[in-house]
């Protein structure tokens, strides 16, 4: 691989790392700060990606109409698609949260697995909605005309990194406010928070919806980066499990940790293809993706057992008004 090839490889790595950083930040709002166990990230990922795709693509015409079916095709600009993705994912979060957040904490986990599976099944089977297993292609990319096609990824990287920065800044502001301190209080001791007059259910619901909306944003950015989406991309492993390992490795309850973990785990995940493709004996090389699944699973167990706080760990200081 020559230098420019390596460089564009690093850029594509950074784009996906940035997109996963957005998922990890959304999960950090839910799990890191509020203690909500969402294991259906893949569902919000898919909702964000498909919503933006349906908003920004035109309805297929002519010969394409026989191959591609979709419920709507609004042909609106990229920002509208992203906004739609955020709103719809937030609404799905609301629907999941309403019946479960008053109940035992693990019911939310089961419900989120369920919604993620249901969403994937619907997109896979209902061809009229978004073309079934073949998915949607030709998603527009923002500001495409501004640069040469071969340099477009640099521009997209800037868009992704700016989005990460905005999301990071917004969560940091929120978490250092009285609102954020209530979330942490709920995570630490729900009963105590309720006794101080906080509406625990309402705060949990806000955290769940906010996190889900952020995940939808990540899903939209993913869709417009790869340009073609199908239900295969939103499996529990890619959509959910990787994000969990990212947040746990970086440090839950720490937004810098979430971003660090996202880039690190995505680097390990893609970097390990070199090892599995070249170093393994032929029998295992054919099953290389699964060797990497195994590796990611082992990393999660190692973090839980050996360093539950992650690499960075949580920052205990929650207000600029407090002394260190």
């Amino acid at each position, binding site marked *: 691989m020559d230098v420019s090839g390596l460089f564009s490889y690093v850029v594509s790595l950074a784009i996906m790392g940035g997109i996963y950083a957005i998922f990890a930040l959304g999960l950090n709002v839910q799990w890191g700060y509020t203690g909500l166990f969402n294991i259906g990230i893949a569902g919000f990922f898919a909702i964000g990606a498909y919503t933006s795709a349906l908003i920004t693509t035109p309805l297929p015409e002519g010969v394409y109409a026989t191959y591609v079916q979709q419920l709507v095709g609004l042909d609106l600009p990229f920002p509208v698609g992203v906004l739609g993705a955020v709103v719809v994912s937030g609404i799905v979060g609301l629907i999941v949260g309403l019946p479960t957040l008053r109940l035992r904490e693990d019911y939310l986990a089961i419900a989120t697995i369920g919604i993620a599976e249901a969403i994937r*099944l619907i997109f896979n089977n209902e061809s009229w909605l978004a073309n079934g297993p073949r998915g949607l292609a030709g998603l527009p990319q923002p500001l495409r005309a501004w640069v040469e096609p071969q340099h477009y990824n640099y521009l997209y990287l800037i868009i992704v990194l700016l989005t990460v920065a905005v999301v990071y800044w917004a969560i940091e502001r929120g978490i250092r406010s009285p609102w954020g301190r209530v979330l942490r209080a709920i995570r630490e001791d729900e009963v105590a928070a309720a006794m101080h007059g906080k509406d625990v259910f309402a705060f949990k619901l806000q955290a769940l919806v906010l996190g889900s909306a952020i995940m939808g944003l990540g899903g939209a950015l993913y869709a417009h980066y790869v340009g073609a989406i199908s239900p295969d991309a939103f499996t529990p492993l890619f959509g959910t499990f990787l994000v969990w390992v990212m947040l746990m490795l970086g440090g839950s309850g720490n937004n810098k940790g979430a971003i660090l973990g996202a880039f690190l785990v995505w680097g390990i995940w893609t970097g390990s293809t070199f090892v599995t493709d070249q170093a393994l004996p032929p029998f295992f090389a054919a099953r290389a993706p699964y060797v990497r699944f195994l590796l990611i*699973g082992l990393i*999660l*167990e190692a973090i*839980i057992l050996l360093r539950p706080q992650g690499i960075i760990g949580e920052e205990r200081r929650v207000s600029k008004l407090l002394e260190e």
Partner: protein
Amino acid sequence: MTELIVYGVVLGSIIALGAIGLTLLYGILRFAHFAHGDLMTLGAYVVLLLNVQLLPGLGIPEFKLGSLSFGGRMLGALVISMGVTAAVALLIDRLLYRPLRARHSSPIIFAMASLGMAFIIRSLIYIIWGPQFWFYAQDLRPAWELPLEVRLRPDQVFILVLVLVLVVLLYVFLQRTKLGKAMRATADNPQLAWVCGIDTSRVIAWTWILGAALAAAAGVLYGVDAQLRPDMGWSFLLPLFAAVVLGGIGSPLGALVGGLILGVVQQVSTAFLLPTYKPAVAFLVLILLLFIRPRGLFGSA
């Protein structure tokens, strides 16, 4: 329709076996064990390894049993698989959950660890057996024509009988033996049980043994009824949890009834929906239940 209900009972009895183990674990270890479906898968593949891939090569013949698609060697492999899966569960408990118990981790951390274990078990199965489907027996077996236009294969009757036997054995164990009573006491109130001199670590070990062995049997029976896929256990996860919540967490009898209901509902839904929607149907049942009666149909806790 009658046929769908009968098939639903067959599917439901498989779900029930998994759900009973899951609810015991839930009641005694107090966390949602997300690797339970993948223990089912493991059990099914151990039988594949023994009965299809290893034993025929060693010249051990199959003793055909009546009209069933399998025979005595398969039953032997089933028993070994239940033992192997139980041993694997004990090993995982030793390496993963016991250190977490010593640290008094929250139930959610246990649940997360079990989710990781689910992915580890599944990826090992992918690595060893690949992503393709496997079958225990290739030959087609004629079905019996029963009244009300029900066609039932002898294998399906075997599934129902074996589940019944296992459930009765479990019932006697929980009601009549000292260990079974200790398990029920621990599920009721762990601290009180501990203060009363019940050896909780022994109870936990036996809960894993029972839960994993039942899960293995459920996985094998699904393999007998349908086929083996690495993600078969994952697709059982939602019906398993729905059955457990339906029956009330910690109640084996509730899980049995919940499993049967889920099986029938899932099977009957195929009259209106694509069969691939079965997990989504289980999810829908669960969500409706959480709205109406979150403690389960029989639960009080």
